[in-house]
């Protein structure tokens, strides 16, 4: 009993920590990545007593992003503008971060891990309808930014908040459609089951990943997910050029850090979802609970613990890959105009999603697939 509780707690903490750290890492990705793309050097100054230089190591700016920036942020003055709704103003960032974090609770980061006789499902919580849970938490996510914009008693912020809200609920629709289509295809609302269903191979060599049966949904989910995370090319809510910083214009210090963390957490979330839905989650190609079965027929038996850990590693690798993809896109594409954004959402993605859903349904009914 107690041990179970302990295990669950550990699982939760681990997941959250991994997410937060990853988002921290992403900050570094972002800075150096953008520097590469723009042919700059990027962060390369901060060092502790120049240890690295003394040792002749190249300064890749890890100090800046992982140490200096956070310290700077969290030690800044936490400023609340005059006439702002103090309570909501401080609540908003956490309201934004919280739903994103709890979403990870249902994400299977691996198959069952067997320690002795105990079987540990490698996800923090496993409601039968975890896909719905994901949608629900995404839905709640709106409030943070919305209230952040509203509470800071600033027109720019309010505009940013309104934009953010409109954008997010518009694209949540698309996300929902994508997820539903996938759900229809898999015939289950449970992410863990989805991952299981993506095991095995077609034609003896082709991994059964969801991307192969739901390509459209994949594109929809990726696009809409990036829109959810409100980053370029969908960063209208922040819109540096016209609204100073959108909904967190009036934020500074820790709260703003939390908002930024939310952004990165959302990137991670999107990647995780894409991975889980379309890239087999923790599935490693040709890896089965009892080891590898290569297409050639070669077999390499492995103990469960290894298999589980391989799964976890595969999962996070895929996730990081998609985070990287998103950052690439963010630094590659120009920004939409707001009307273009809305047109894309309502006249482009939503109809596409509907069509995809209908087709999927037809196929499923026709094939009787489960």
């Amino acid at each position, binding site marked *: 009993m107690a041990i179970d509780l302990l295990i669950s707690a550990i699982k939760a903490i681990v997941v959250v920590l991994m997410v937060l750290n990853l988002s921290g890492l992403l900050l570094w990705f972002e800075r150096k990545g953008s520097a590469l793309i723009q042919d700059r050097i990027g962060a390369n100054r901060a060092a502790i007593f120049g240890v690295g230089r003394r040792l002749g190591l190249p300064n890749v700016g890890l100090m800046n992003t992982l140490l200096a920036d956070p310290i700077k942020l969290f030690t800044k003055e936490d400023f609340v503008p005059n006439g702002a*709704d103090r309570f*909501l103003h401080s609540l908003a960032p956490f309201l934004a971060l919280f739903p994103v974090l709890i979403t990870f609770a249902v994400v299977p980061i691996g198959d069952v891990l067997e320690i002795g006789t105990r079987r540990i499902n490698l996800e923090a919580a496993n*409601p*039968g*309808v975890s896909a*719905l*849970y994901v*949608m*629900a938490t*995404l*839905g*709640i996510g*709106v*409030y943070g930014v*919305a*209230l952040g914009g*509203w509470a800071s008693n600033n027109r720019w912020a*309010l505009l940013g908040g*309104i934009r953010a*809200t*409109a954008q997010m*609920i518009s694209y*949540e629709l698309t996300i*929902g459609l994508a997820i539903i289509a996938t759900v229809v295809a898999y015939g289950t*609302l449970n992410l863990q089951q989805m991952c299981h269903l993506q095991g095995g191979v077609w034609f003896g060599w082709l991994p059964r990943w969801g991307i192969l049966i739901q390509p459209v949904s994949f594109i929809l989910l990726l696009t809409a997910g990036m829109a959810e995370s409100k980053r370029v090319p969908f960063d209208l809510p922040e819109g540096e050029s016209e609204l100073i910083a959108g909904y967190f214009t009036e934020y500074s210090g820790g709260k703003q850090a939390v908002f930024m963390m939310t952004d990165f957490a959302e990137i991670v979330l999107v990647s995780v979802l894409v991975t889980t839905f379309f890239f087999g989650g923790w599935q490693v190609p040709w890896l089965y609970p009892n080891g590898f079965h290569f297409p050639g027929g070669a077999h390499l038996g492995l103990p469960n613990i290894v298999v589980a850990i391989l799964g976890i590693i595969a999962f996070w690798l895929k996730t990081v890959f998609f985070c990287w993809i998103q950052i690439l896109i963010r630094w590659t594409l120009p920004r939409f105009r707001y009307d273009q954004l809305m047109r894309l959402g309502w006249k482009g993605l939503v109809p596409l999603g509907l069509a995809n859903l209908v087709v999927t349904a037809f196929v499923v009914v026709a094939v009787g697939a489960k």
Partner: protein
Amino acid sequence: MPLWLFIFLAVIAICGAFGVILQRNPVHCLLALALTLIDVGVLFVGLGAETLGFLQIIIYVGAIMVLFLFVIWLLNLQIEPAPNAHLALKFFGSIGAAALAAELSVFFFNAQPVSGVATIPGTYGSVESLARMLFSDYLVAFEVTSILLLAAVAGAIALARRMTGAALTRTPVEGEGVVRARESGS
């Protein structure tokens, strides 16, 4: 669901409900309401209606409440002034509400005990069972609701559509609101 959890949630729900009707600031009311709704959703899950619980959160919190939020922003509602007079209404209203609560509780606690303990099938509250009922016994109602939603969308657009500049520049007088609403609806 264990009792302590229920009590915990119930307290939150009631606090939220009171928040709705006691807060001055519409946005705070809305937040309180959203809190209550999420709470009720969790209660659903606790009652075995998993699907419904999450649907509740998706639909109510994720959509309807956001709509409210938009309207509040659109109309730029500020904190309403200290409620003036209407003490009689307040008084009787509260009394009546309390009495209603009492009466309803009496009902519920005197409800006929179900013969034996209700057998809860394994699929209780799952999407499959819900869908099975929706598309068999309640098919007609289901289809009709789709039409209802369509009609609601059309009606909402027709009602809230911005009207001609003339109507906007005119200073509103008694009764014009309704008239304009109809015009813009037509």
